[in-house]
């Protein structure tokens, strides 16, 4: 019996029971959709984690002035902990051999005004090495030098978004902006960095000397962070150990007492995020497997029903010369057509979800052609596996019994 005619017969049989066929393949649809969504999200997360490492600099180590549980990353709070100070940053640069550059950081959010234009943005007070540590470059003008830090100069470097919001296309270098009524001279504009890992705009920032921000805007003497660049990616571990030892000593922390700071690396943040992504992936994989199993059993059940309903048809086909393997093939192909239709629907749903999730949840997703192909083939395999026993039962019917079946 020709494959084309078997296919036609299969499609007719399935279309005859549209609702039944649809409900039957629902399990496969959900399973395949889950697999595709899972792989897309997993790959998206992997990609953005890799981006994060590259964006943030592989050498970066940061010191935060608060207590953390291991591996956890807290927000920018830490207002009560005021023990991290400029002298700590200087000491790190002076005494830790694995460290090449250090920059303090203080941070606030404020409105920035230029003429009639105003823009609310994040203000980061940093040291002169900050751009170097985080691999941020200046597109126009220059980064402020160490001298400006020492004398708390009222200068700033604008992120691209801020520059465009305040000055449009005009060159802002040399202009003056006001932050909380304090005038700052613009000395440079950062090169565009685009979206960050979690969809945040990394160009929406103003950089100024940390001394200026401490004195003029915040009235504090402590730091929110110290950013450190290690000598190389393989020196990151060394550097964080040296920094920890140094600060334990400087802050006079006794054995058994908790540190009032924590030293983190990008690699740690990334591995935490990766673990979360993997857990999520495993969860989706479990859903997908259960769903495909249930879908397969559904197909098996409906194929048994179909074989019973069509016993007489099978008898007729056998009487006119269909061999066991012709009947086996027919029902097997029918099961595969059924499960593949489910697979195709599932792929459509999964791809749809993978396109929608990044928009709705700001989660990155990358649609993987391999995942689409594999789930298509897998849904076909589900049809073969679960369709085999019903098809074999059909092929072993006794034609005389089958013809007599009412």
């Amino acid at each position, binding site marked *: 019996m020709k494959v084309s005619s078997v296919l036609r017969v299969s499609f007719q049989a399935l279309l005859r029971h549209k609702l039944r066929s649809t409900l039957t393949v629902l399990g496969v649809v959900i399973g395949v959709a889950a697999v595709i969504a899972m792989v897309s999200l997993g790959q998206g997360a992997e990609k953005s984690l890799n981006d994060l490492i590259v964006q943030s600099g592989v050498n970066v180590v940061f010191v935060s002035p608060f207590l953390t549980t291991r591996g956890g990353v807290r927000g920018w709070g830490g207002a009560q902990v005021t023990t991290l100070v400029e002298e700590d940053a200087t000491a790190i640069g002076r005494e830790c051999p694995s460290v090449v550059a250090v920059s303090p950081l203080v941070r606030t959010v404020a409105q920035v005004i230029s003429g009639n234009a105003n823009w609310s943005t994040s203000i980061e007070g940093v040291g002169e090495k900050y751009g170097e540590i985080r691999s941020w470059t200046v597109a126009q003008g220059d980064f402020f030098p160490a001298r400006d830090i020492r004398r708390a100069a009222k200068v700033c470097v604008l992120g691209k978004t801020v520059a465009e919001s305040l000055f449009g296309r005009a060159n802002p270098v040399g202009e003056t902006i006001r932050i909380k009524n304090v005038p700052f001279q613009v000395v440079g504009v950062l090169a565009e960095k685009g979206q960050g890992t979690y969809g945040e705009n990394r160009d929406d920032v103003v950089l100024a000397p940390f001394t200026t921000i401490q004195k003029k805007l915040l009235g504090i003497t402590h730091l929110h962070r110290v950013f450190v660049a290690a000598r190389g990616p393989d020196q990151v571990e060394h550097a964080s150990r040296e920094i920890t030892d140094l600060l334990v000593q400087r802050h006079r922390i006794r054995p058994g007492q908790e540190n009032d700071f924590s030293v983190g690396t990008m690699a740690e943040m990334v591995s935490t995020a990766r673990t979360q992504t993997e857990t999520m992936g495993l969860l989706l994989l479990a859903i997908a497997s259960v769903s495909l199993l249930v879908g397969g059993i559904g197909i098996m059940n409906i194929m048994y029903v179909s074989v019973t309903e069509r016993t007489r048809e099978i008898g007729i086909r*056998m009487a006119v010369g269909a*061999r066991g393997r012709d009947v086996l093939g027919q029902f097997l192909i029918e099961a595969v057509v059924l499960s593949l239709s489910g697979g195709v629907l599932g792929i459509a749903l999964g791809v749809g979800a993978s396109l929608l999730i990044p928009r709705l949840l700001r989660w990155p997703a990358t649609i993987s052609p391999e995942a689409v192909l594999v789930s298509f083939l897998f849904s076909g395999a589900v049809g073969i596996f679960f369709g085999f026993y019903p098809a074999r039962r059909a092929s072993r019917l006794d034609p005389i019994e089958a013809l007599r079946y009412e």
Partner: protein
Amino acid sequence: MTPPVIRVEDLVKVYQGGGLRVTALRHVTLSIEPGEFVAVMGPSGSGKSTFLNVLGCLDRPTSGLYELDGVPVSTLSRDELARLRNDRLGFVFQGFNLLARTPAVENVELPLVYTAVPGRERRARALEALGRVGLSDRTRHLPHQLSGGQQQRVAIARALVNRPSLLLADEPTGNLDTRNGLEIMALLQRLNRETGLTIVLVTHEPDLATFAGREVVFRDGRVVHDVQRPAGDAVAQVERLPPPVREEEAA
């Protein structure tokens, strides 16, 4: 000399199941020559259906010899029997046994689907077979859109499409009224006379058996009666019936 279409010798069929032993055929010996039209008669349980199933290669005898066109059948596998049903045999059943929701022409094509005959030729042969049973104008109709007599003619066309050496008909008029039954008999008689098709017809209506040239009667699994005699003319009998109600209205 061509061999007989059917030669059975000492055929025995025993059914065994649930501790019960039923002997359906007891040492049947019989030959049917090409071109014969044989009516097989007998009360229910006489073994005539079993005999037909064995002739139709749907069932295998417990012992004894069965040759179809000179080919010994008793020892063939399931697949080989299927092949034989496909090339050498045509079946017509009491209940028509057409595939529902499948147009007449596709029902007729069904045996050819299991052969190497290409699609275009299958369709041509199916249309030709429908022409021979007088249904050229009903090829796209579905079974439920046809009257009983027309459905049985589609079934006959299906039985003819693979050009069989033997047509087996199991009470083909059992579900039809007198006129349609007679018309089916007339069609079978015409096919037998014009093309030399060998027909074995199972019936328990003695009137219908008179249209066959040979009558074989079974009782208790044995042939108790086997006579050849001139057959009645079914066409003439159809003509003697009162004028028909139009089939479209009846259906």
